[in-house]
């Protein structure tokens, strides 16, 4: 198969001006991948700087609550900066240092990847610019605050739908001017080759750990693994630990938004989503687009899942039937989040809560000797503004009004 392709998906649809940059990146990536000391350096860095390995928590109360399969939760929320995003950026940071570049740029939706990149840049001493859709800047102000405090420049993107895809386009525009000293840290398993493969490689640390942990705790492979899917990086991360185990069912959970039938969602792989094959942002995958190929606006309660495309690797795994896809609605997400908080004292990010929704639907019908893993890709407590807003919490609103008065 052609390099960078997964079945019919993937590729590197890049402007000619970036060819030389991609040649250099491919070379640096392949050299690092072939060098066992690079991976060891990465694992050591993540252990020393970012709480890895993250625990696999046995969710005893949730298991009892549903009375079915044993529920285990992979705790990416405990990674530094609060999500799995740190895995990818620290790995790319090591690569940037090897390539001798001095500046990093990134796109961000929810702000998770932006904060992670700004953190990495601070740690490695790189200059950093983050592109973020204007709408996301408005809904994720606390993350903007942290990025700026970490020394990054945050550029609000006012084009298009002013969300993740537009931020990605703008980062590309920066890169075609600045590629000599700048690396574009793509935040997910999307974009032109080698990004899907490279980001999946860095994120595979989740699956490697989870596999070892479930064997230690459960004594055998899990029956199912659940992960939310926007671009798909946390899902690819954990799935890679179990791809070669045909007995382990892998379930990707997309953003069902207000419901697939309403058209206000960000699901590409479930029945009726309306996604079709396309080429945009440098790669070929299933996109939510018009029949003529114009990208549609997407909707999700979780900014990190609010994206038109999906990893070409996951398009392929879905097409082959290796990964099963489901969608969780905004309303179901809030319910699952409440349950996780009250029964286990865990606060998943709204993105991650999508995976909880589907796991909660399936666990009760499974037998008690079966086990499932939910990838808790990030923590929700730092998204207090978004979550409190989603809960429409009266005391929180009163607090905000009062605080605003103080600032007047």
């Amino acid at each position, binding site marked *: 198969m052609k390099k960078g392709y997964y079945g019919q998906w993937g590729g590197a*649809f890049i402007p000619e001006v970036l060819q030389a940059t991609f040649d250099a990146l491919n070379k640096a990536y392949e050299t690092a991948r072939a060098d066992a000391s690079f991976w060891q350096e990465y694992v050591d860095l993540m252990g020393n700087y970012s709480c890895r390995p993250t625990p696999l928590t046995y969710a005893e109360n949730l298991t009892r609550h549903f009375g079915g399969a044993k529920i285990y939760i992979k705790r990416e929320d405990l990674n530094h900066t609060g999500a799995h995003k740190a895995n990818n950026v620290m790995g790319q940071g090591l690569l940037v240092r090897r390539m001798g570049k001095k500046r990093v740029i990134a796109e961000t939706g929810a702000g998770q990847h932006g904060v992670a990149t700004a953190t990495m840049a601070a740690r490695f001493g790189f200059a950093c610019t983050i592109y973020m859709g204007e709408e996301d800047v408005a809904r994720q102000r606390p993350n903007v605050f942290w990025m700026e405090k970490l020394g990054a420049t945050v550029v609000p993107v006012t084009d298009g739908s002013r969300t993740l895809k537009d931020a990605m386009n703008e980062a590309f*525009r920066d890169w075609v001017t600045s590629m000599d000293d700048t690396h574009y840290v793509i935040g997910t398993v999307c974009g032109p080759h080698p990004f899907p493969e490279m980001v999946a490689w860095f994120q595979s640390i989740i699956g490697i750990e989870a596999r070892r942990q479930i064997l230690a705790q459960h004594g055998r492979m899990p029956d199912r693994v659940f992960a939310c899917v926007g671009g798909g990086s946390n899902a690819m991360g954990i799935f890679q630990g179990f791809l070669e185990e045909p007995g382990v069912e892998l379930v990707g959970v997309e953003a069902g938004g207000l419901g697939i039938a309403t058209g206000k969602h960000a699901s590409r792989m479930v029945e009726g989503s309306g996604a079709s094959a396309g080429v945009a942002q440098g790669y070929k995958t299933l996109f939510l687009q018009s029949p003529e190929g114009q990208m549609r606006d997407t909707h999700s309660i979780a900014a990190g899942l609010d994206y038109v495309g999906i990893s070409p690797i996951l398009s392929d795994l879905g097409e082959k039937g290796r990964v099963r896809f489901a969608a969780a609605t905004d309303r179901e997400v809030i319910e699952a989040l409440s349950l996780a908080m009250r029964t286990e004292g865990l606060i998943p990010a709204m993105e991650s809560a999508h995976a909880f929704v589907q796991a909660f639907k399936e666990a009760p019908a499974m037998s008690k000797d079966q086990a499932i893993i939910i990838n808790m890709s990030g923590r929700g407590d730092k998204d207090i503004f978004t979550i409190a807003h989603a809960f429409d919490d009266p005391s929180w609103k009163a607090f905000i009004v009062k605080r605003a008065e103080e600032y007047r």
Partner: protein
Amino acid sequence: MDLKKELQQRLKTKPILLMTHLVLGYPSFTVNREVIRQMAENGVDCIELQIPFSEPIADGPVILKASQQSLDSGIAVEECFRFGQEMAAAFPMIRFLFMTYYNIVFKYGEEAFLQRTRDIGFCGTIVPDLPPEEGQTYLERSKNLGLAPILFFTPTSTDARLRTVASQGAGFIYCVARRGVTGQQTAFDGDLEQYLARCRRATDLPLAVGFGISALADVALLTGMADMAVIGTATIKLVDAQGPAAVGPFIAGLLAQA
């Protein structure tokens, strides 16, 4: 006659050729029609008509905004073809090309898109996000139809890369003079003369030079070094500011300098 020969023929009587650019449907087909007439009457050789795409990663703010407004007005690919057909019939001296992103071609169907492009009297296509590695069927189908798939040279390309690209292109080569996106006023990269000499050594196809060219001096500077100057963003800005009537004198002025 194929595009390469046609351009070489024209170069026998002109020191430099001119290619201009429009975003279809921006601000309207009515204005597009008037702008094209002005361009044709003032000696433009080629016109690239851009079919808007929602994710134009190679374009700067001016074309980005124009594309968005055109899409917001509900423009359809079918209308672009019909308008193109009308223009090709009305201005037979102009060589028309479609510029767009690959998804538009892909969704229409590569073969069908190219067939239609030829049938309406166009001579080629410019697709900036389709490198030759990904565009093998596109290149082959274009050539079979007698269309010129325009490929790019850039200041970052090695000599080996220039030769690889040149061997797969047709019509002319689009030499990007600067890094960055369309309309960006970065300085000409390094030594323009040296870069264009490198381009010239890599191919016998005519060289069109574009990205950020807007001033009379730019065209004068290119004369002798390149075969065709590409004016993109500058005319969009001009129409925004002064209306379509300003285009004719602007084009005439550019060529008077050359």
